[in-house]
């Protein structure tokens, strides 16, 4: 078995006011290992996105902890949490996920700037990753000058360029047509297989489910069942 990247230990997230409490995530424990291509699957309101947010430290749990690369991110705050996310997690969101005033190159470079990577290495890594996602020659285009699929490729490149331990993707194909979505997923699958990048998706898209090696089915904030292929 590969190295453990994320360990979610008896995690719960409750929302509510006064007597009305809704458990978006209810006592979930889950381990994600290096090189996995996992999909968190379930209908709307099943807790997929909340679980993804808790995994990444974007949201704080009501109970339980998330361990990322052996360290509890549930106890981190402020700059420590920001820096840890920056260095260990890559994010891909539904859409509109690029900074619109920056070019494709700058969007990818942004995270390396936050990591204070020297300029020569930054350029090398950005151009290399642009090649990997098939966007050579489009580095000076702003997001509005790119198609939806190309924007998501830039987002994938941005998520990968910092060489994180894991990439979390929240419904990455939701705003793409099936052809573009399929091509994007093939690319991510190839990166997973060739570069052993760990992906965790939150989705109810059949295309992702078809490609996932592991499916975690959620229902009412709990893990209903798992399927490993």
């Amino acid at each position: 078995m590969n190295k453990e990247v994320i360990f979610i230990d008896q995690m719960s997230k409750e929302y509510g006011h006064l007597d009305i409490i809704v458990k978006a995530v209810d006592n979930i424990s889950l381990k994600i290992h290096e090189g996995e291509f996992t999909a968190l699957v379930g209908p709307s309101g099943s807790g997929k996105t909340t679980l993804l947010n808790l995994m990444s430290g974007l949201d704080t749990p009501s109970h339980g902890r998330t361990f990322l690369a052996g360290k509890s991110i549930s106890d981190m705050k402020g700059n420590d949490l920001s820096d840890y996310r920056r260095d260990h997690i890559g994010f891909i969101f539904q859409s509109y996920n690029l900074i619109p005033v920056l070019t494709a190159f700058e969007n990818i470079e942004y995270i390396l700037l936050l990591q204070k990577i020297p300029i020569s290495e930054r350029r090398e890594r950005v151009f290399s990753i642009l090649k990997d996602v098939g966007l050579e020659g489009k580095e000076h285009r702003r997001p509005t000058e790119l198609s939806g699929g190309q924007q998501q490729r830039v987002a994938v490149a941005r998520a990968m360029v910092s060489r994180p331990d894991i990439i979390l993707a929240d419904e990455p194909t939701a705003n793409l047509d099936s052809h573009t979505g399929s091509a994007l997923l093939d690319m991510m699958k190839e990166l997973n297989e060739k570069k052993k990048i760990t992906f965790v998706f939150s989705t109810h898209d059949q295309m992702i489910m078809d490609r996932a090696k592991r499916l975690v089915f959620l229902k009412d904030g709990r893990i209903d069942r798992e399927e490993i292929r």
Partner: protein
Amino acid sequence: MMIGKLGFRNILRNKRRTIITCLIMGLGLASLIFADAFLKGLNENMINSVTNSFIGDGQIHRKDFLKTRETEKTINDSVYTLNRILANPKISLAAPRSIASAMIASPTDILPVAIFGIIPEQEEKISSIKNSLISGTYLTEDNQNQILIGEKLAKFLGSSVGDKIVVTTAQAKSGVLSQELFRVGGIFKMKNKEMDTSIAFIHLKKAQEMMAIGLSFHEIVFKFKNKSDVVDPPKDFLSIMSINDNEALSWKKLVPAIDAGIQLTAYSLTIGSFILFAIIALSTMNTLFMSLYERMYEFGIMKAIGTRPVFIFRLILLEAASLALLSTILGTIVGAAVTLVTRLVGINHLTDVEYLGTTIKTAIRPIFMPSQYIYYPLAIFIFAIISAIYPAITAARIIPSKSLKRD
């Protein structure tokens, strides 16, 4: 630097909003610069109107003379005091005057007036009586029985140049009435109600004879050499000249309404500035909040991928600073241009208007001051930055999971 790139590009993102905000801030600054320049011009004009028409930059009297107007209260050691003030290096001009309450009678009417005895050659250098003549001639040495009267007084008396007029006044100490026949030598119009209705000028020597005060006089009017001394009369000088039971007073004490008016304009400008700063602060805050709410998702992403809150805080402040910089450049240029044009052309709308007891005689010309181009832009800049702190804190505190909930 990435933060600079982001900040600059973000303010160009919604050009219309940026332009409107810059216009609000810039034109606010321009109006502040112009208002300051205009009010300084108005103040200078008022001071000039007061000091150049009749009051002078200051006057010396016997103590209490201005309260009692008693003829016997002449300046102690009048001639010595006049020579002493003329010898002072701060003084450019000084002229003596004798003053008495009198009755002036024409064949048709009799009216109370104040008679001023003057030395014509000295007086014409210090006041605007000669220049205010609308008919007749100024007082001449060869004719001691000439009198100059105001336009309205002439109208009330039904007199014109060359007509006979009788002036009656009481002699100092004895109170014996003294009467003289004069001919109207000239009629002046100083565009000041009091001057034009109740003052008449005769030769000093004749006035001294009528008042029986010898070579003494009641008033020395003086002018400073330096303009700065006019605006802010030196207290030590006034103190030095206030000896021997005489009292030297600046125009500020002689016409307190003008000084109060100047202070009032400064006060009004301060209040106006604060109102304007508040508008600018709210406008900046509004713009930044509008921009912030439009970019919630974006800030959420920035924070999610590892941007520290302080970076976002700095980014918002930088955007505010960029807006403020553009606005201050615009405002300074527009303010300077409007001030320059109005200074060259002059603002005539208030000419001949009597304000706070004095008549504005010339066009108002706004005055350039370095402070207008240092303090106001700086204040606008600082206000804009301060008003950006709250939106910046809000942006820095955005919780990514909440802001990313947008569909």
